[in-house]
């Protein structure tokens, strides 16, 4: 394996990846059976970070482990395991998105509901998943000026991603609609509905 592996001080190892698929495969492999001292495996857009406790696992040993650990491709997950999220597609930016993509608003909704999305990584806020799909045809820029407050449950697009705001926060994503699904519940055994690798399907609520 010719992975580019960088140390992050004495408390992390960063793996550069060429694609989102590689991010998912590398992070799935590393999360399978980590040695004691690995605190977190954090996938992101084009990298995977392994956070360690340097008093338990020295960084050079963590580097050896990261280099040795094989990838685990996640493509074969059964689509029956997909989380279904019902969306009311009446978002403020639906018409702007349709104009940008040179299609109708109906086309935007059909594209969003017509594919399986995968949670590539989680960031920005607890439970905020960045979802990708190979063939969605929904790549749009962020809004020029972010909104100061976006309500919880807002479904949006930015770059190659779709995502849902778990809680009210400022935000610059293009708003497609709204869901009542709870994305983040810190009191639950699994606080985040969306974890890296999970499949998601959006459904238009009537």
């Amino acid at each position, binding site marked *: 394996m010719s992975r580019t592996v960088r140390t992050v001080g004495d408390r992390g190892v960063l793996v550069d990846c060429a694609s989102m698929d590689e991010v998912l495969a590398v992070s799935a492999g590393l999360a399978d059976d980590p040695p004691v001292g690995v605190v977190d495996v954090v996938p992101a857009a084009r990298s995977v970070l392994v956070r360690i406790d340097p008093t338990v696992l020295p960084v050079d040993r963590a580097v050896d482990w990261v280099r040795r650990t094989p990838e685990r491709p996640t493509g074969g997950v059964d689509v029956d395991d997909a989380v279904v999220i019902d969306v009311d597609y009446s978002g403020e930016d639906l018409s702007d998105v349709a104009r940008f993509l040179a299609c109708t608003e109906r086309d935007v909704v059909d594209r969003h509901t017509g594919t399986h999305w995968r949670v590539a990584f989680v960031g920005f806020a607890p439970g905020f998943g960045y979802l990708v799909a190979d063939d969605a045809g929904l790549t749009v820029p962020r809004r020029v000026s972010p909104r100061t407050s976006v309500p919880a449950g807002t479904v949006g697009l930015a770059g190659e991603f779709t995502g849902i705001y778990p809680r009210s926060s400022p935000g610059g994503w293009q708003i497609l609609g709204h869901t009542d699904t709870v994305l983040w519940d810190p009191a639950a055994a699994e*606080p985040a509905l969306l974890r890296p690798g999970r499949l998601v399907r959006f459904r238009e609520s009537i």
Partner: protein
Amino acid sequence: MTALTVRTAGPLSTVQDLGRPGHAAIGVPSSGALDRSALRLGNRLVGNAEGAAGIEVTVGGLSGSFDGDVWIAVTGAWGPVTVGGRAVDINHPVRMVAGEHLEIGMAEAGLRYYLAVAGGIAVPPVLGSRSTDLLSGTGPAVLVDGDTLPIGQAHPESMRPVDISPWGRPDVGVVTVPLFVGPRDDWFTPASVDALFTRTWTLSPASNRVGARLEGTPLERSARAVEWGELPSEGMVAGALQVPPSGLPTVLLADHPTTGGYPVIAVVASASLDRFAQLRPGQEIRFRHGR
């Protein structure tokens, strides 16, 4: 159950333990005490497990009383602390009688005190921790005047005496901190990587629990980095020196976001990270190469 009634909360007092590591993959910051060694010492002094929750008092201004007799210890910053009007030592266990008034004055050296109480602050944990995370809003709210906080059951039989505890104030002069270069030093000119170690930096008053902002001469991105454009968001660690387009680094602290989009030029050696909790705005910092 014994309780602490907060008469005054001061500018920023929060409940902190050693945080909630292990949830970065779902976007949850680690949080926890910024000066972990000070919280640990306070807990040892009163016979708690090292990770029990205490109160992180920024600058000072916390006062209040307990409705039962308790052992307490104040660690971290250096300043006037009184119990029932009597001055008490920092880094020393103190017995408080029910109703006696505790007052933590303005820090004269260092910036963050830790109030440890035998039994620990027993607010309900969220994701395994009682820490207030100011970035994501996870955990208990920032303390306000009049709050009442439950104190857990003390276990005096488990008390492990501390033979020696440090005595003296945190550094107020220039602080030297070891750094490891990378992982994204190739985003900066070699001259800027050198400058990180040869210049003197100053702590900005805009610093907080998310990050310690440094003032100085801006670091410059390499020609390659200008071509690369934006760094895709990547996972972050506490101690990372993230460099936004302004060229002035921010040292990420406990409440930092789990991912970030600015390149990290270097990372503070873990053993020295606590020092950033005690730096005061305007204090000078120099970096040396870590080993």
